[in-house]
């Protein structure tokens, strides 16, 4: 199995505050991996560094064998990485349909566009119902669906999901995670960042535990559950 994404010795600072320290991480083609950790651990920063919204201070990132750590975000997006950011960040004044169209900005193939749109509406029928509704008027859960849908429309090879369950009710959370599984079945590699460790471990194949910018441990759900480290990382004691 190929490595879709390889992160080697990545360091990142926000001014003087250290955000990421010596991150080594690989994602295999077709995987659904998760990064968990307490708030402030650097999870969002990690995704931002991958998608190019932040330039890492040190280290290398390779996507499909090509270096991307020195590329600008829009170039990285063109290569096939879609980033669904924390707290959604939709185009709130645009309609659901327009948001989805914006997601497909780099897509030239009209047929593919219809295909993807069909998929999005299949997993999120509520979005189909509200095609013409302004994104800002959707509920929290619907907005999250739209954000993920928008990312899917880019037909990504790698999907980065930043805390999709943030602020959502448990029922909707489950729905979102079911969809993430469906996306994986379609063949899209996904890196999921989550604060909700339990949910993340339900879906993730390889789980990386991030603490204060460092990968504290990684493994499968079963491996992690054996260690009391998770509680210690989240609660300090």
């Amino acid at each position: 199995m190929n490595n879709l994404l390889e992160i080697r010795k990545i360091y990142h600072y926000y001014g003087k505050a250290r955000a990421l320290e010596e991150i080594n991480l690989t994602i295999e083609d077709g995987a659904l991996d998760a990064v968990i950790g307490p708030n402030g651990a650097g999870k969002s920063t990690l995704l931002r560094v991958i998608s190019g919204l932040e330039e890492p201070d040190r280290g290398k990132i390779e996507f499909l064998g090509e270096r991307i750590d020195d590329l600008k975000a829009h170039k990285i997006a063109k290569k096939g990485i879609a980033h669904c950011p924390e707290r959604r960040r939709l185009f709130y004044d645009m309609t659901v349909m327009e948001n989805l169209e914006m997601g497909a900005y780099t897509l030239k193939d009209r047929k593919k566009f219809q295909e993807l749109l069909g998929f999005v509406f299949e997993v999120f029928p509520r979005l189909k119902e509200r095609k013409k509704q302004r994104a800002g008027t959707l509920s929290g859960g619907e907005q999250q669906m739209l954000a993920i849908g928008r990312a899917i429309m880019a037909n990504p090879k790698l999907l980065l999901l930043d805390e999709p369950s943030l602020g959502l009710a448990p029922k909707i959370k489950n729905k979102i995670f079911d969809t993430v599984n469906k996306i994986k079945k379609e063949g899209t590699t996904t890196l999921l960042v989550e604060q909700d460790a339990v949910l993340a471990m339900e879906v993730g194949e390889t789980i990386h535990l991030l603490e204060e910018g460092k990968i504290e441990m990684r493994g499968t759900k079963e491996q992690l559950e054996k260690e009391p480290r998770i509680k210690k990382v989240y609660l300090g004691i």
Partner: protein
Amino acid sequence: MGVILEVKNLTKKFSGLTAVNDFSFEIKRGEFVGLIGPNGAGKTTIFNLISGFEKPSSGKITFNGKDITNMKPFKIVNLGIARTFQIVRAFKFMTLLDNIKVSCLSTRGKELAKQYGIDESASSILAAVGLVDKARIPPVILPHGDLRKLQIGKALGTNPQLLLLDEPFSGLSHEEQQGITELIKKLHDDGVTVFMTGHVLRELMHLVPRVIAMNQGKYITEGPPQEVANNKIVLEAYLGKGSEQLA
């Protein structure tokens, strides 16, 4: 030991969102207390409410018996509550010494500095936080850990009885964190009541004898760190529903 801070039924609403919900607790003079909760729980809002940077929607805050609920921030400082900020603030175009001097020029700070003069007072505070050899340098060149120390120094300049530390460890290396821990311990030993909050719980949970836990604006529980960390609701708040098996 008397009660130094009393928070009763504190509520803060921001257009539809209830950031703090009917929150009550008290802190005794000389105590060392932590406030924990996952992201967005409302910790910084509570600090903002106590220090006067936000006005509560309802509820009461009492300091040394005095109602400070709707007071202006600088007045609260001059009564004896000082705070640091999550994102480090400094007077970036002034020297470190001048940064501290500003606090010494507050009404309360001036009283403390009366005996030895403002310059000497500021210098000794810089020395107390371990930055005296950088007195003439502006904050721009300093590493993050020193900036956090500077913030604490600025708070000390106002001669506080109660020190509110908002995420004093965030963004620091382990050595830097230890440095801050030493400093905070020393301040507490000197008699300052310390109330701190943070995401980096590794240091905090081993530092404070008592911890108050909150989530989504609501009070969950309080007690010794070990107990609180094993509390079912606290675990769920941090790790998600069904997290007992991770305890």
